[in-house]
């Protein structure tokens, strides 16, 4: 990675105070403040000067946030308007984009004026993302894109998409991909909500028909798309696996215990009660083990000695969460038959507050935990092969041109 120049924490705080003297978060809107924050190099201090940074260590970003919070009740962009833009878009543009693209794209990612989405998964390319079929064909200084993407969060709100498309079908799958920044307002881009098991749409489908992308919107070289994408994918998996409660008996466990303690008196026979009680205790233990293992992983990380404890969270959490909400419905018993929220197809509006409604919602939503960001089966392959060193399966798509590989 890059070398960072050094700056004392105090000097950095001084710079933040200079920014605050010029424009105060309590007196302007998010865009107004964050534009100035960007200009002062205080957006992401590990970025170079002129691109919202000062070339400092990324650790110092916390100092900026802390100093703003110290002087203002409002901290704009916490959480950011475009999580994907900040977390994945900005780093990839900085690493692979032209000077002109950086100038055009980075400020508006930071201000939140432009939302970003990620266009990787396809109906025929789920776990095997690198097998994707969306094509990009060169036409002078443009590329013509045709295909369909799926599971695209916030596509309906996005101005830009990070697109992975096949530019060469005649080479093995990883070698024929290229990475583009797609203007979501371009002609031929159509976004449709994807309604899921709960009736709401957290995701979209994106259809691309003869969409023209300028060649200079390609990030990295032609055929290097997989390498560019891999960083983004790793960030996603870390983001999904890192959860769990920080406090004993907190988070989802607290909700389950609340349901259990408020169960309908007399509804269960002593035998049923004993069985359910043991399942609730098991669930309590499961969540404690997740919490303790995350704690152990952090300690090992801090000691510079990370082991397998950090790799097991994604798989374990998915399975534990599903089991827990199944149990929650059993605790509700007959009342689990009702689904008061209904299934009107609609945009996602977040999670219900009421504990019973939450249990019913999560009973359905948690099915995705073992699919999104790497299925549990893929996670078991990764643990088996990368952590335990077991040999891989024989591959039928290795060293074979993508177009020769059977697809569904």
């Amino acid at each position, binding site marked *: 990675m890059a070398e960072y120049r050094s700056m004392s924490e105090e000097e950095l705080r001084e710079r933040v105070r200079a920014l605050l003297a010029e424009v105060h978060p309590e007196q302007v809107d998010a865009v107004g403040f964050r534009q100035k924050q960007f200009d002062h190099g205080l957006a992401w201090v590990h970025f170079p000067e002129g691109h919202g940074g000062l070339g400092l260590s990324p650790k110092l970003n916390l100092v900026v946030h802390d100093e703003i919070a110290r002087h203002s009740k409002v901290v704009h962009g916490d959480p950011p308007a475009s999580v994907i833009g900040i977390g994945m878009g900005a780093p990839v543009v900085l690493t692979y984009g032209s000077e002109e693209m950086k100038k055009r794209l980075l400020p508006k990612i930071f201000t939140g004026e432009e939302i970003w989405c990620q266009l990787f998964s396809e109906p025929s390319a789920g776990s095997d993302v690198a097998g994707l079929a969306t094509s990009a064909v060169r036409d002078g200084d443009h590329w013509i894109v045709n295909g369909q993407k799926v599971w695209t969060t916030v596509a309906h709100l996005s101005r830009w998409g990070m697109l992975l498309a096949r530019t060469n079908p005649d080479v093995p799958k990883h070698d024929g991909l290229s990475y583009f920044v797609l203007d979501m307002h371009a002609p031929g881009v159509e976004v449709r909500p994807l309604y899921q098991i709960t009736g709401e749409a957290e995701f979209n489908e994106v259809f691309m028909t003869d969409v023209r992308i300028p060649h200079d919107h390609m990030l990295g070289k032609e055929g290097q798309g997989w390498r560019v994408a891999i960083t983004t994918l790793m960030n996603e998996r870390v983001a999904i696996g890192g959860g769990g409660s920080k406090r*004993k*008996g907190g988070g989802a466990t607290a909700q389950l*215990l609340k349901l*259990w*303690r408020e169960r309908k008196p007399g509804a269960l026979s002593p035998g049923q009660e004993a069985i359910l*009680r*043991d399942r*609730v*205790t*098991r669930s*309590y*233990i499961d969540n*404690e*083990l997740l919490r*303790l*293992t995350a*704690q*152990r992983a952090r*300690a*090992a990380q*801090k*000691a510079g000695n990370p082991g*397998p*404890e950090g790799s*097991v969270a994604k*798989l*374990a959490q998915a399975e534990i969460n599903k089991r827990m909400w199944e149990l929650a419905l059993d605790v509700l018993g007959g009342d689990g038959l009702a689904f008061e929220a209904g299934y009107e197809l609609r945009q996602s509006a977040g999670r219900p507050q009421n504990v019973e409604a939450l249990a019913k919602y999560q009973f359905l939503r948690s099915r995705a935990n073992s699919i999104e960001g790497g299925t549990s*089966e893929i*996670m*078991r*392959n990764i*643990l*088996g*092969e990368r*952590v*335990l*060193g*077991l*040999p*891989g*399966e*024989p591959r039928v798509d290795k060293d074979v041109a993508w177009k020769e590989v059977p697809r569904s």
Partner: protein
Amino acid sequence: MSIDFSFTEEHDELRATVRAFLESHSDEAAVREQMSTDRGYDPEVWRQLAEQMGLAGLLIPEEHGGAGMGCVELGVVMEEMGRALLCAPYLGTAVFATNALQHCADETTRKELLVGIAAGRTTATLAHAEPNGRWDLAGIELQAKAADGGFTLSGEKRWVLDGHTADVMLVAARSDEGLSLFRVDAGASGLVRTLVPTLDTTRKLASLRFDRTPAQRVSTGDQSEAFARVLAIGGAALAAEQVGGAQKCLEMAVDYAKTRLQFGRPIGSYQAIKHKCADMLVEVEFAKSAAYAACFGAAGEAEDFLETAALAKATCSEVYFHAAAENIQIHGGMGFTWELPCHLYFKRAKASDLFLGDAAHHREVLAGLVGI
């Protein structure tokens, strides 16, 4: 509470030293030799373990000749012993009896016995369970009778670790002061000690029958609270031992899956086997978190230690058994033979699950403490 899980360099060194000792003094051949004897351990190895390694007195204060260490170090040692299936009176002497002395016994007895234990001269054990089959404190029904200024015991204790060889038996029984601790020495009158043929022959258990056996009460006042803590520390130590065994089973299974070829490729390349191994890995990592939390909790006298200890014993019992069972399955027919050591771990796993109360018992304890 939040636990700082950081093992220090000293812990790592301790682990390496104990592992090296056990690799040379408790390899599979040594385990098989000792498990077929009635005594169940090699006195020479026990002597070295106490004298050279200072492990018998690990928890014993330096003033009594011990190493003055705590439950984190004990966890490290137990994990290694579980991995090696060490045959020794360690759990009875250095864990249960030592903790019972430290938490329940009067100063004179404590000093006298701890000095002998630390030096490797004395083996001791704790007699707790009874024919009623219970592992909780209410299951301790044996009533001591006052006689001639002392006490006598009449009745039976079951599943006593090394009860047939221990020099000193610390017996939990009821007296006018409530739950009390009594000392009975080997050779006491009316005492019959019977070695039980056990499922797991690497750890010897005995029945103790008392018939008007003179016993010295060595505690003052009701010991219920202290005794609960003694059992919880024992559970935490046993959980650490289970983690060591489970990790070893995982390693054996993975090694075999890498080298065993069927249909022209290693069986570990099949997802049916690979996914079993991945699930074992997750479970073993979780078991480590539980056992370490309990050992750190015991060492730091965490207020929720009894909860964590119950959680650890419940978790590690199931994880070890599952790992040992899957290890046999992955080894296929060979895993079922006497020749391979898979069955030794399988038997130890089930025995250490049942001893001190199984996983369901400990979940019940936890549920009571948490209020589920």
